[in-house]
Every structure is written in C-alpha cells, then in structure tokens.
C-alpha cells in the first residue's frame, strides 16, 4: 500500500484536473481499502463545496463616483501629455 502522503498528492492532482489515467486507478484502489484516505478525500471535496457557498456582495452604490472624485485631476494629465 502506498504512503498516505502520496495518495493525498493524487487527490490534489485530481482536484486540479491533472490526474493521469494510471494515477486514477492507483487513487481509486487505495480509497477502496483505506478509510482514513476516504474521509480525507471527502473532507477536501466538502471543503470546496462549503467555500463556494460564500456570500456574494456588491460595491456600495456610490463607489464609481467616489473613485472618479479621487482621481488625480484631468487637466494636469492632459497638459503633461501634450
């Protein structure tokens, strides 16, 4: 049986879509026989589901206006460029 650390590396390759065919077989065979790795894998996938449920927030309503007010003045820029 492979070391857990190596199997965990395969889990991350899987999550990044980088897992090779033979690695997929290794990972699957190991998971079938190792509860510890099974729950590690489950926790990883669940973590990603959880963080993807984070709230969506919007910028305050006067955001653009405030940015525009704080830009260096236009005239200076124009003169400088000419």
């Amino acid at each position, binding site marked *: 049986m492979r070391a857990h650390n190596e199997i965990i590396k395969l889990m991350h390759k899987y999550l990044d879509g980088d897992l090779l065919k033979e690695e997929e077989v290794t990972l699957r065979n190991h998971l079938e026989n190792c509860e510890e790795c099974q729950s590690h894998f489950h926790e990883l996938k669940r973590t990603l589901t959880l*963080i993807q449920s984070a*709230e969506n927030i*919007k*910028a*305050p309503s006067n*955001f653009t206006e405030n940015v525009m007010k704080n*830009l260096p003045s236009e005239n200076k820029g124009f003169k400088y460029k000419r």
Partner: protein
Amino acid sequence: MEQFIREKIKQVKKGDQAAYSEVVNVYQHKIYQHCYRMLGNKHEAEDMAQEAFIRAYVNIDSFDERKKFSTWLYRIATNVTIDRIRKRKPDYYLDAEVKGTDGLDMYSQLSTDDPLPNEEVESLELQRYIHSEISKLPPKYRSIIILRYLEEFSLQEISSILDIPLGTVKTRIHRGREALRKRLRHV
C-alpha cells in the same frame, strides 16, 4: 465586453478621464468583492478597491493593451490588499495565522450532537463563518483560493494574475485546500 473595455482604455490613455468611469462601473463589484474576501471587512475593502482603481488609472500607460485588462486589474487589487494586510498591526494578523485553532473555537460553541441540516449551508451565519476561516489563511494561499473557488479563474489565469509560475500556483492551492480542510472539517 472585451472590445468595449479596449475602446474605453484607449480613450483613457488619450486623457479622457470620463471614459474611466465606465471601466470602473463594469468591474466595481468584482474588484470590491475580491478586496472584501481578501480583507474580511467592508470598510477596508472599499478603501482598497478604490485604491486599486486609482492605481490602475495612474499607471494606465504601463498597461499592455494586448493583454486582458481584468487580469491586470485583479493583480493590482491583489497586491494592494496584500500590502494592506502586511501593514496591519502585527497581532491582528499573526494571531489569526499562527494560532490557528482548526475552527475549534467556533465549533465548540455549536451543539455537536446536532448535524446541521442541508439548507443551513446557505445560511448567512455559516457563510460568514466560512468567510472568516478563509480570511485566516496566509495571504499568498488566500488569494489563490479566492481566485480559484470564489471567482472561478483557471489555474493558468491565476498564474497570469499573480505573475507566478503555474507550478507555484499548484503548490499553494494544494496547501491552501489542506489548511481549509482542517479548519472546516467540523462544520
């Protein structure tokens, strides 16, 4: 959209400041949200998102028009927020990073015998808790986790945004996922 932004950037480069307001309009929510996720509070998020747009404006001549503007803007926003995090009082941030409790503090306040029903995943309280756990990651992992899983960039795009090699992105996302797994396994 890309074409619209390209046009606006050209106008801004020629000195038309008003054209920039349309650029800000398009990206304000994404950049504000990115700053909020990096910093974990609304006040700082607003300041730093503004700072990012102002820096982009001031440095617009150094923007290479063959590249994507949004990638460049996200890079500025990420750098601005990481600078801000570094300038915070040391205890503010080190505390969160070093004394990671694997979420046990919060967890111990919840009734352990009662698994949370599924709908609760959507609850605001849980979302905030998850957010606060993301905020405790060291910034270099946090930025990648946020860009990948909340803002849905590919690893390749993240490598361009942060200007670091793809292999480094992969190492950091691996560590970031493990750190979060430890923090969120009890939820």
